[in-house]
């Protein structure tokens, strides 16, 4: 809603609905819990609506919102959760995943890639993400060390990421 001067209730709702998914996903990506992501997403929009802000369209607004969200997330820790030097990497990884649709397409592809998993990779995803088992429990069930579970999860995610990218290139 470029050029907007005075906003009414419907504008606020539209604005929030337009960007909330990306802000929330971005906060989860940074490492916020779901509850913290809820609170910080809300605070991010309040800052946008309260602060003097020159609106330059949806893309600039989205970038502004991500910056505010990231600052709020960092402020919620006593010590910064990541180094400032990492900011470029953080942004690049996010935009690579979210592209220009808040990550919606990547999620759809991820679902399809998940179906292609089998064996231990499929099992570890089920135990960790679906059943929310601790690493120790998973290690016991799969006869692995806890470090082994960590490595298996990471390898599985790398496979999934590669699969998402293959789909994207083929699209």
């Amino acid at each position, binding site marked *: 809603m470029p050029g907007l001067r005075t906003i009414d209730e419907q504008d606020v709702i539209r604005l929030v609905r337009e960007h909330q998914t990306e802000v929330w996903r971005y906060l989860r990506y940074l490492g916020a819990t779901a509850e913290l992501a809820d609170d910080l997403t809300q605070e991010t929009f309040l800052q946008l609506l309260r602060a003097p802000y020159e609106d330059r369209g949806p893309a600039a607004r989205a970038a502004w919102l991500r910056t505010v969200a990231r600052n709020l997330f960092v402020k919620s820790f006593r010590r910064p959760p990541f180094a400032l030097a990492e900011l470029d990497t953080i942004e690049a990884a*996010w935009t*690579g995943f979210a592209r220009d649709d808040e990550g919606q397409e990547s999620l759809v592809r991820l679902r399809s890639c998940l179906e292609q998993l089998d064996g231990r990779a499929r099992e570890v995803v089920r135990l960790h993400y679906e059943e929310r088992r601790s690493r120790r429990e998973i290690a016991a069930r799969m006869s692995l060390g806890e470090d082994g579970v960590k490595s298996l999860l990471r390898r599985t995610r790398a496979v999934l990421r590669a699969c998402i990218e293959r789909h994207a290139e083929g699209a």
Partner: protein
Amino acid sequence: MNDWDDRAVDAALHELHGSKPPDLSARVLLALREASPGRLPELRPKLQPGRSPRPWLILLAAAAMMLASVVGTWALFAHSTPGGSEERIAMVELAVLDGSIEMVEARPEGLVATALATGARVAFAARPGNRLRSRALAAGRLGEFGEVTLQAQTELEVRSMEFTVKNGVVAASVLTLSVVAGVVTWHSLTRGETAAAGEVLRMEARGDAAPTLVAENERLRQRVLELERQNETLQTSRTAAPKAPAPVVAETAAPEEKPMEPVTAPVMFDDPKFADALGKVDWRLVGDVTKEMQPLLAELTAAMEKDGEVPPDLAIKIQQLNSQLVSQLPAILKAGLPGFGPNGAYTHPLFVANSLASTLASAGLSLDATQRDAIAGLVRSFSVENQSLSDQPREYDLEKLLAETEMKERFYSEVASRLTPEQYASIYPEGSTDYDGANLFRPSLMTRVYSDAVPVKDAADFARVASNRLGEELGLDEATSTKVRSIVESMAARSPELFATPGNVTESKLHMLRAGRTVAAMKQQIAFLREVQRQVNLTPEQQKKLASLKRVLVPLPR
């Protein structure tokens, strides 16, 4: 794939398995409306440099607006700085409970110091740099953050104020004060902490402020109306009726045997060294309040276990009673009873025995002569042990805390064995010994001030948090921190019992840990501090800091 690519897939997998983005539009709208009851804000162009700051705006959410109408408890303001950024400032009600407190605030006209005497209630701007001072021992209440006791020559400076947004309500949640000089102790319903010069005190506001204060508002209104009515009645009767004679107290003849006489204001268990100060404690009040508070504390933990929430009325009642006990704290501290921290004095055998006698008397279950003699003997011998522990030098401060805790545990147990079943039930209501802080006759009153619950997944997770904290406290470099971590991890792995029982809602929300957790964690921490000292090359300054650590990191398994 780098770490952040990995995180993106991780977050997406969590989302596919249930963690969905919510629709927050209603919450945002609600928060905006609460902030500004008029028309909604505008999206404006950037402020031009040199533009004058906007006037103070009340930004507050419903909770704080209601608070302002109570007794000026506290309010939040958003202040636009010349740079255009907003600075939120909380106005916290400062009530002086005992002694004198000086408030120093930065105002446009310069630094303004205001001396406040007992009974004063003012709004204190909790803005970084503003200060509170005491020349002599003093106690005060800082709005929703609870009571503070300032030792003589103490000076505190506001370092920061943190805000949270919960369900659309902006609220001041944590007030951090730097202790410039002296010693300060903070007490609230669920937390307590002591900090000395050079340390920092983080005071957390009581949760659910809005509903509790609405109820408190209503209660105070009713009380004012009631007092006004009483005043009118008294005025009328004073002018109409002749002065009534003073009631005659019949002096009963002392029987041969020692009677079951009620304990009133006098000190029952005395010590010439502390007689003056103990005589200044209002033991009747201590007894009445403790008797009333004990079952409520048990009720509190029961309510948390059942519903996961603190009933607001119950929280208010406990907080009010607690404030009355805290009002006696300066007198107790003036007595100079030896002990670890301020609650060390509160749990000193001499204080405990008098408090117990007053509580039982208030319940109509006074100690008989045999019990008094037996407990007097225990008080004498344990007071000697207490003094000896206090005088004995230890390598680590935590060793001193542990030794005193174990001694007091034995004292409470010995005293309890002298009580009748009715007396025991009155002092230890069912369920009141399950959690630290849920009973006023347990040494956990002393230890919980220093316990710091750390929610963790397992021993390795605990090692990570503990070594980070230790690294921060001691100023360790990355390599040394890693070494500390491996020591803590290997020692934590040898204590699986610390990670066996998952933390429950009472522990995580009320910070009332299950009985036994803190002492077990303290023992382990002393062991790993010793091992760190042995294996890690620390500077003399770091060794000094290590020895004076007082926080006990208590693992709270998720």
